[in-house]
């Protein structure tokens, strides 16, 4: 099986099968990162699609100095920031978890309320802290990888995440 880097090189030569395979491999992560940052499915889809377009457009200049995923998330980060700056008023979308058969109505209501509060608290974080949190907690990236995606040091990522957690703990102290 080809690596992401090999697929990128093939895509740069016009191999659209390779490009589609890259999209298939990373579509879930790309959509999730954009969605968790923007809280809007339509915008997340637009951002993810645009990110893949940009990656294809710059494929001939791609140098595999970092993992492809890090490169992709860096592109998504910039697109999300653009959307974040342009977007007014903020479109918010409730991310309702799928109901489980084991849950009674009271449990489901409680969980929905807690989920809504967690999302609201995440949305209140400054953009860079929010993206660092998304990449750490939902994509499982290391501080070093996050630093590469956000163009900062691992130490800066540490500080971003510590501040984000402190704020979230204050916001959610009676909800978790």
């Amino acid at each position: 099986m080809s690596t992401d880097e090999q697929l990128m090189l093939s895509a740069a030569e016009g191999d659209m099968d390779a490009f589609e395979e890259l999209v298939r491999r990373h579509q879930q992560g790309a959509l999730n990162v954009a969605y968790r940052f923007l809280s809007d499915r339509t915008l997340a889809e637009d951002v993810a699609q645009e990110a893949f377009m940009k990656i294809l457009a710059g494929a001939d200049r791609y140098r595999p100095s970092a993992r492809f995923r890090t490169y992709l998330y860096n592109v998504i980060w910039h697109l999300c920031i653009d959307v974040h700056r342009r977007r007014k008023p903020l479109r918010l979308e409730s991310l309702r978890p799928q109901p489980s058969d084991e849950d009674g109505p009271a449990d489901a209501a409680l969980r929905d309320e807690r989920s809504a509060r967690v999302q609201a608290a995440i949305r209140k974080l400054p953009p860079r802290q929010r993206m660092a949190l998304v990449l750490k907690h939902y994509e499982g990236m290391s501080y070093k990888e996050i630093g590469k995606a956000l163009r900062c040091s691992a130490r800066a990522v540490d500080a971003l995440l510590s501040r984000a957690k402190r704020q979230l703990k204050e916001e959610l102290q009676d909800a978790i």
Partner: protein
Amino acid sequence: MKCKKTSERLNAYLDGELAPDEALAVREHLRACPQCAAELDGLKQLNRALEAEPGMAVPNGFARRVRAVAEERHAVPVGLATSTARLQLVLSRIAAVVMVAAGLWVGGLMARSTSQSSLGVEPETYEVTEFDLQLDPLSATPPGSVAEVYLAFADQGE
């Protein structure tokens, strides 16, 4: 390690991002400090709440749609990289070269036959008319201009 320092390093400790010696120092402090241990539990709870949040399902046909948009936007031929498509491209280029060469060859033949058939026919002659253009656009009264006619009338009047 003091409580303040431990508290600052707790998140990185939980994320497994501390150097071994620093992680050891945090672990030893946590064993002796219930307050910092409780803070660690709070962080763990927060992480669990964050990770319970649902993500976004991939819309049907997303990858294919992205490819279609890319092909439209970048005008990349569909499946160019497949061997069949590459062969088609090479063949079409060869066909184009052959057609151009054939066109030049037929054109050359036709030109030769035309020049041979025109032998013995008197060449058409054209009378060349020379125009004496004296219009001087930089002159105040270029010959034939309204200004010149006006001055001529004015002279007659005097």
